[in-house]
């Protein structure tokens, strides 16, 4: 088959959807399929594997002269997103989309764009990796968006996500939570959405765990880690509050925060003002996360909203005790009390108490991590994920994969 993997998000990227797309492309090629990857960049759209670029400024002036006097321009985020998305439509159309046996988009925005320009006979699979509307809600609530008209913004993303999901022949979600959200927000029929969890190359991950880096565990300390984006919805502010309380009663830990994001300087300030200056280490974005996980005792995912973060999967495969919030798809990743702990979302006190407990009882913490690893080795395996994905491809295309 000839398959197009596409996304509206910027690629290549250290985290996010890129590693998943790259690995899927690799595994499909290994089975003899041809794969192209199409995605976004600040200045162009591109077919990454062919290094073929479509410069946005060649398309945007004509589009803008037709939209800049419409109500869309009343909201800068809506206007610029819509112009950018329309450029994706125009550039994607020139890829000769009729040549593909399947188009697999990794977000609702690109699904809508591709659906508008593809020939009807080419099947389209949409694979959102989170709730776009949910993220917009949280961004609005946290006043992180430069907009004075949040109602228009909310209506726009709601309409765009709904059309993106429903424009596709079929949808894929990694969690039952996301399937439920799509059903509730947009009345997407149950039969339109398949659900199976992500998978990672566990053997490769384990090998990377043994590659040393400069990280050293301080003597007599246990390591609490978070890895991911530094944005409001990841709830790092909740973790820092919990650590502040933890420090009052014990100092046998250090917290490693790995990643980058718009809120990083805010979190550095928060850590300092809570007196956590030397207890929290900001490592920045890293490509050697497996090594950090190897040195981690407790992994924390304190998100306010999250679908199925890769870092929680990696922490389980590494054998860490994992604490997640009860947000969105996170509880589906944990058997509470057995492979990890689920704490109420946005509840720093509960998080503090569970961290204290896990630090206090070594045997329980170590057994929890071992059990998570044992279960995770199959549940999060790449072989299982690929089998599920190829089965779905076959179902959507009617062709053998």
């Amino acid at each position: 088959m000839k398959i197009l993997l596409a996304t509206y998000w910027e690629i290549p990227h250290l985290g996010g959807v890129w590693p998943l797309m790259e690995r899927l492309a690799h595994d499909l090629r290994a089975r003899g399929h041809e794969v192209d990857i199409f995605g976004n960049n600040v200045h162009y759209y591109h077919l990454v594997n062919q290094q073929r670029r479509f410069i946005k400024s060649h398309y945007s002036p004509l589009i803008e002269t037709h939209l800049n006097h419409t109500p869309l321009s009343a909201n800068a985020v809506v206007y610029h997103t819509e112009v950018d998305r329309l450029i994706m439509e125009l550039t994607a159309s020139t890829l000769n989309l009729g040549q593909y046996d399947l188009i697999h988009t990794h977000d609702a925005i690109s699904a809508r764009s591709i659906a508008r320009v593809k020939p009807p006979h080419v099947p389209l699979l949409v694979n959102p990796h989170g709730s776009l509307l949910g993220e917009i809600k949280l961004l609005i609530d946290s006043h992180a968006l430069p907009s004075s008209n949040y109602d228009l913004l909310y209506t726009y993303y709601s309409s765009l996500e709904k059309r993106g999901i429903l424009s596709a022949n079929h949808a894929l979600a990694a969690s039952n939570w996301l399937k439920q959200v799509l059903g509730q927000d947009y009345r997407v029929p149950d039969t339109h959405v398949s659900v199976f969890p992500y998978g990672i190359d566990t053997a490769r991950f384990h090998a990377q765990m043994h590659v040393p880096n400069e990280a050293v565990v301080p003597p007599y300390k246990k390591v609490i880690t978070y890895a991911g984006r530094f944005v409001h919805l990841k709830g790092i502010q909740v973790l820092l509050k919990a650590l502040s309380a933890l420090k009052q009663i014990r100092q046998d830990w250090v917290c490693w925060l790995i990643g980058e994001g718009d809120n990083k300087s805010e979190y550095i300030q928060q850590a300092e003002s809570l007196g956590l200056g030397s207890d929290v280490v900001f490592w920045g974005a890293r490509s050697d996360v497996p090594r950090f996980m190897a040195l981690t005792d407790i992994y924390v995912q304190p998100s306010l909203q999250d679908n199925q973060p890769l870092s929680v999967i990696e922490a389980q495969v590494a054998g860490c005790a994992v604490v997640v919030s009860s947000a969105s798809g996170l509880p589906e990743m944990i058997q509470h009390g057995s492979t990890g702990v689920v704490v109420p979302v946005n509840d720093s006190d509960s998080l503090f108490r569970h961290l204290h407990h896990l630090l206090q009882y070594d045997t329980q913490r170590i057994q929890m991590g071992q059990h998570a690893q044992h279960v995770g080795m199959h549940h999060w395996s790449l072989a299982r994920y690929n089998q599920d994905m190829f089965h779905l491809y076959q179902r959507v295309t009617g062709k053998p994969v």
Partner: protein
Amino acid sequence: MRVPGQLYSNLFLTTSSVPELLVEDSIWNEVYHWLPKHYSIPDLDVIAPVLEQYKKQTGEG
């Protein structure tokens, strides 16, 4: 070659605010060749609720 953007006006449902705009014909001819017959900008299905809300907010059409 730079040509008037107006040559491609049938791709759009709205008028141009800069009718004298020049665009590269090789870029737009290729787009024009590949787009489906009934394709148009804007995407009315997506923006209809936005226009409706704007109308409610401002009383404008």
